[in-house]
């Protein structure tokens, strides 16, 4: 079930291409202004984490919300991206952007491999297979000490190298504002890419698979192949997030990628509104920012995630997007009544 259930109520986020361009502009401007509003390093780190979570959430939504594949192992792709990109730099001495690409490609390949492996598995079996996969990946990261240094972790990871273009000031990514622009910029880019795909016949294909695979096959859709595609795309984006995570946080420990992380990303997707792409963006922002605002209450972050996830599923399964639709419908009704009365 997604927010599309309420077709009669217009999705306030579903706009024509003209207004979408305005929203895009607004997003760019907001991203530009945020580091100027938040100057301290604590909040800037949060902004970067927020951008990373957005990337993770939209990647998962592509797999879960659009293709309908219950992937509980998203944390594994995050971790693969982080470790692969870092190790390519430290062990192979290759430059950052090459390592970045490696992280994306390997995370994407892992996603496709999992999907190909699980291609005949439906619903719950896939959920458990993906969970099992995530546990294995985490355990490998913990136990392969010669490669990953295990629980001790990898320290001193450098940010991406400076960009020195002729005639322009040098852009150093040690500066947290610049790092934020980089990560948020990529998050926006991935969002636009996925959004275009979703609005194309590819999105229709994935939706058909999500709704009824047997039906979709009877229309000529090669369900296994498209599921692999969706998994590959979503996990590749997670891999990119991993690479940025490593280079912005500077240290890497396996426990950053335990299965609980998969659940928090899931919470962001569901709370935002599964299958809408923009919903998970809001969900990621809300669930990253809110616990920080409520910091006075101690370690309530995960309690919040759990409560939000449960309550949303029970009472507002379409998440923030559905809530927005209802609010919008109320406004329209109110306006109509005022105009008539």
């Amino acid at each position, binding site marked *: *079930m997604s927010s599309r259930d309420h077709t009669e109520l217009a999705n306030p986020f579903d706009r024509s291409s003209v207004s979408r361009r305005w929203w895009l502009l607004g997003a760019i401007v907001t991203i530009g202004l945020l580091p100027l509003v938040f100057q301290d390093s604590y909040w800037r780190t949060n902004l970067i984490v927020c951008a990373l979570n957005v990337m993770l959430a939209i990647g998962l939504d592509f797999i879960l919300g659009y293709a*309908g594949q*219950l992937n*509980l192992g998203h944390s594994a792709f995050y971790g693969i991206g982080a470790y692969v990109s870092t190790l390519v730099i430290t062990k192979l001495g290759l430059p950052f952007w090459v390592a970045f690409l490696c992280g994306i490609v390997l995370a994407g390949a892992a996603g496709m491999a999992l999907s190909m*492996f*699980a291609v*005949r*598995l439906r*619903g*719950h*079996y896939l*959920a*458990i*297979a993906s*969970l*099992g*996969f995530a*546990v*294995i990946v985490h*355990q*490998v990261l*913990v*136990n392969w000490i010669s490669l990953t240094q295990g629980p001790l972790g990898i320290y001193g990871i450098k940010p991406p190298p400076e960009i020195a273009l002729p005639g322009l000031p040098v852009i150093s990514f040690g500066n947290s504002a610049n790092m934020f622009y980089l990560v948020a910029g990529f998050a926006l880019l991935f969002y636009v890419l996925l959004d275009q795909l979703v609005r194309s016949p590819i999105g229709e294909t994935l939706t058909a698979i999500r709704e009824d695979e*047997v039906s979709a096959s009877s229309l000529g859709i090669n369900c296994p192949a498209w599921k692999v595609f969706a998994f590959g795309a979503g996990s590749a984006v997670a891999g990119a997030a991993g690479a940025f995570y490593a280079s912005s946080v500077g240290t890497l420990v396996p426990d950053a990628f335990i*299965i*609980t992380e998969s*659940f*928090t990303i*899931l*919470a962001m997707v*569901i709370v935002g509104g599964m299958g809408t792409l923009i919903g998970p963006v809001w969900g990621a922002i809300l669930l990253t920012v809110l616990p920080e605002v409520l910091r006075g209450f*101690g*370690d*309530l972050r*995960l*309690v919040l*995630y*759990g*409560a*939000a*996830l*449960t*309550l*949303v*599923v*029970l009472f507002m*399964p379409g998440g923030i997007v559905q809530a927005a639709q209802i609010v919008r419908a109320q406004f329209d009704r109110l306006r109509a009544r005022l105009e008539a009365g």
Partner: protein
Amino acid sequence: MSTVLLQQGINGVVLGSLYVLVALGLTLIYGVLVQINFAHADVVTIGAFAAYFFTFTFGGNYLASIAVALLVGAILGWLVNAAIFAPLRERGSELLPLIATIGVSVLLQNVMLLWFGPIPYAFDSPYSNQVIRLWGGTFITGQNLIIIVVSTLTIALLYAFMKFTFMGKALRAVAQDRETAGLMGINPNHLIMLTFVIASALAGMGGAMLGPILVLTPFAGTTVIVKAFAIVIIGGFGNVEGTIIAGLLVGLIESYTTQFVNPGLIDIVVFTLLLMMLAFRPTGLIAEKREENV
């Protein structure tokens, strides 16, 4: 050498029978509802804490605390079904209830974290240190003996219940075909509730007995649950006999892996086995094909 083999075999059976208790609950719920209850793990943890507090804070008998944990588990099962599965059943979504239970699980774990703290509780049952010598130079602790006895009794009782009593058969009927069972005058909703209560009672009991063995933190359940999933899949969702065999198998594998290989690799071994199972025989060891009705 054979002593070690035998000893680890015994330990494996102990561990296995606990896993079976926990996994049985999952498989029963799946059989009747075709849903996975992620919060099952936390019933185990709560059962362990309930037993702990009953024994140490209220000074109760450890054996009685197992019964207490059973009750606590039963109540929790009733709550989870009433609050989550029953309301969501009408919506007819396959994914939503699962996701809701993930939410409940995360919530419960972290509430427990706030309440009990992350530091492990030392749960020593009065029987943990009693040692009974067995044949061939092996031994078994009193605690483990209790585990085997209680688990075997419970599992046997459950098995008999499922196979021979009317209720048990009704449960299986609902698992096979809910509509028809309904038409025959069986109220599926009541039976589903009964299933939940039984399943969670088993989990609570398992927790009480696992408490002295595991590291007792709010996350104790998670270490067991993913293995329980593995067992349910290997044995076949909804298949009671398969779950029993698979549970014992996993217990033995874990025991032998710890002894002869690196204990850190247990999870990898078990889950690779799980993935292999899913690849080649997703319906489990004792296959029971369910053809899709088009």
